[in-house]
């Protein structure tokens, strides 16, 4: 269970809260936020002996890539179009598999009213679910 005030709790935890006393008052009655604090402290304590300067830099990610939901929508539209093509074909010959190589697809433009996803949505789980859906769709095409 998550709390909508978890971002404030995290900011408080790392000394960046605008109103620490408000967060502390919240923590009195919020077990999920206290659990978040406990989790972060456990990791911070475990990492305390680690030589931080030995932690090598991670690869710089591509910037301003906010196309997640639009890619998803684009893929669904593509899948729907492929279904239409298969449906219209008189001889249901096995079609060439959908190009599900997302990386090869051109990134759509970011909509100006794009809204950031909720804080703790599991992006990995969503992508996994998307892969499974596409795999199912692809399977359906081949069995038509």
């Amino acid at each position, binding site marked *: 269970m998550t709390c909508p005030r*978890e*971002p404030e709790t*995290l*900011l*408080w*935890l*790392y*000394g*960046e809260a605008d109103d620490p*006393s408000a967060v*502390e*008052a919240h*923590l*009195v*009655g919020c*077990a999920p936020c*206290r659990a*978040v*604090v*406990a*989790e*972060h*402290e*456990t*990791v*911070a*304590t*475990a*990492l*305390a*002996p*680690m*030589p*931080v*300067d*030995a*932690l*090598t*830099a*991670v*690869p*710089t*990610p*591509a*910037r*301003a*890539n*906010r196309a997640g939901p639009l890619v998803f929508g684009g893929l669904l539209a593509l899948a729907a179009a492929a279904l239409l093509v298969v449906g219209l074909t008189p001889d249901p010959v096995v079609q060439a598999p959908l190009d599900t190589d997302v990386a090869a697809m051109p990134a759509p433009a970011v909509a100006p009213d794009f809204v*950031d*996803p909720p*804080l*703790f*949505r599991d*992006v990995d789980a969503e992508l996994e679910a998307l892969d499974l859906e596409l795999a199912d769709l692809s399977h359906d095409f081949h069995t038509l």
Partner: protein
Amino acid sequence: MAEEPLLHAVHSLDVRIQRTHPDLVAFLARRVGTEAEELAQEVWLRVHRAAPDCEDLDHFRAYAFTVARRLVIDHHRRRRVRRVVVPLDPTAPEPAGDPGRDPHGKVAADQILVVVQQVLGAMKPEVAEVFHLRTTTDLSFKAIAARQGCSLNTALGRHHHATRQLRKALDAAGLTEGGHP
């Protein structure tokens, strides 16, 4: 007469502090060693200032330990900064938990580093970057968000996600309190 409820509240808070203090010090000692008592005093100072409205001792304990955890994180961060800024004096006594010249501590530190590098390497770069920056620099989450071109909430979410993944890996490697290899 009007002072009675206030005196009662203060007395109640002091009683709760007295009852919680030994466990709090033991908790802190496992994390910060010899500085546990000093940190405990800081916890109580903050608790006094906040005067939390806890319905019973259990809630009070949970709150006090949460404040303590925040101070532990701050303690570790300050120690890291001190290690980088102040060169180690070879004749000075070892601080608590410093793996510098303790061979077992060095092995544990290297194990932790390996696990962290593996976990960060397997993450999406933008997620790993937030954790890396927060751990190795003094950048605020706001500054990290600006650097990544994302919202503050997204940067916080990425850091939280990275922390959860690290927790699982460190638990599995037996490198956290209560974790089993």
